[in-house]
């Protein structure tokens, strides 16, 4: 049976943990505000540039421009974006699970080779330990997220895609929905998918004037688009991570509160029991004296 002192010690321990979780929640909340602004500000640009790029190609481009051509898929590169740290609920686990599901169900079944690009320390550690084929890693990027990290992914993957070493690039990451909600996303980066209702688009094809010419614009806008999408992915993941951590730490703090409450109750019960026992002893001792 736990003695009074043991219970007291546990209460102090839980209280200390609670202090930490509360501090972590507050830090995450403060960082989240900035991360959220960043991602919300980046969204219009990436959305618009994506919509231009998906409207731009005509039938010829779909078969001649390497960025749009659908090839026979033999090699797939997966960009896995996790967090650098844990303590954010199932954030990292979800990504890892989805990646493995994707590999097992959609790639291994079709005998497709795959390579991973891991961004975020958790993913790097996990996949490296299990001997996955890795083409690039970036760990520790989220402590101060910089545009160079997106460039790094771009420079690792896109040349390989153009060489034909990779036929398809998929992003797996968490996107930021709201402060209490993240969404797991699997998105194809390359080849660039055009708008689904493309048939319609060709019917009322707009005769754009291109200045200086189509090729130049393609050459300019496609890298811009890809870099912007990668950057957006990192921003989304960063904001999602912080919001996940905030929720997780908030839950932990509440749980600690409950634990402390129940421990206090046990402590008080024990204390009363001890006092009662002591009084009983004294009274029965006194009675025994009186009787004699």
């Amino acid at each position, binding site marked *: 049976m736990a003695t009074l002192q043991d219970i007291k010690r546990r209460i102090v321990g839980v209280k200390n943990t609670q202090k930490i979780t509360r501090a972590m929640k507050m830090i995450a909340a403060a960082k989240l505000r900035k991360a959220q602004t960043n991602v919300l*500000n980046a969204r219009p640009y990436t959305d618009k540039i994506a919509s231009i790029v998906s409207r731009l190609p005509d039938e010829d481009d779909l078969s001649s421009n390497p960025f749009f051509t659908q090839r026979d898929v033999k090699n797939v590169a997966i960009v896995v974006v996790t967090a650098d740290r844990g303590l954010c609920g199932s954030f990292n686990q979800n990504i890892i699970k989805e990646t493995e599901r994707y590999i097992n169900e959609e790639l291994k079944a079709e005998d497709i080779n795959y390579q991973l690009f891991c961004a975020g320390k958790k993913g790097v550690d996990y996949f490296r330990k299990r001997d996955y084929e890795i083409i690039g890693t970036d760990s520790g990027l989220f402590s101060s997220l910089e545009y160079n990290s997106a460039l790094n992914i771009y420079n690792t993957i896109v040349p390989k895609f153009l060489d034909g070493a990779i036929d398809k690039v998929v992003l797996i990451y968490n996107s930021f929905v709201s402060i209490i909600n993240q969404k797991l996303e699997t998105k194809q980066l390359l080849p660039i998918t055009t708008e689904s209702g493309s048939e319609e688009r060709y019917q009322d094809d707009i005769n*754009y004037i291109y200045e200086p010419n189509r090729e130049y614009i393609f050459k300019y806008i496609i890298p811009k688009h890809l870099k912007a999408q990668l950057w957006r992915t990192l921003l989304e993941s960063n904001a999602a991570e912080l919001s996940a951590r905030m929720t997780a730490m908030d839950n932990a703090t509440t749980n600690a509160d409950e634990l402390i409450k129940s421990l206090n109750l046990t402590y008080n019960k024990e204390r009363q029991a001890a006092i009662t026992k002591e009084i009983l002893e004294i009274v029965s001792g006194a009675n025994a004296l009186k009787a004699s």
Partner: protein
Amino acid sequence: MAEIDLEIITPEKIIYKDSVDSITIPGTKGMFQVLKDHAPLMSTIEIGVITLKNNNTNTYFTTAGGTIEVLNNNVLILADSVEVTEDIDIDRAERAKTRAEENLKRKKEEEEINVVRAELALKRAINRISAKEKYI
């Protein structure tokens, strides 16, 4: 009179969203102006100054390049960086200019790419400085 819906968006934020009478753009093939009912157009933008005209007042933005799409009186400018000329930090631009010039001197014999980058940085700095002097 404002008849064209214009949006200027950079990766950091939406800079401008309103209707205007005309827009003058430093296109890759030269300056051009977009008025009402302009034909559908897609063009790249060079380093330079974008001029918006609305009710006879002009607003000037410096830009470091981007793209413009004109379609049905909707104009969308996606630019790498855009500043209202009033907001230009002249000291920062001057510093960037000196830095670029030094880099150019030093890096002449090094890789080509560094020279290109330094030249672009210099161009951007000069653009900002000249815009500030000209329009304010």
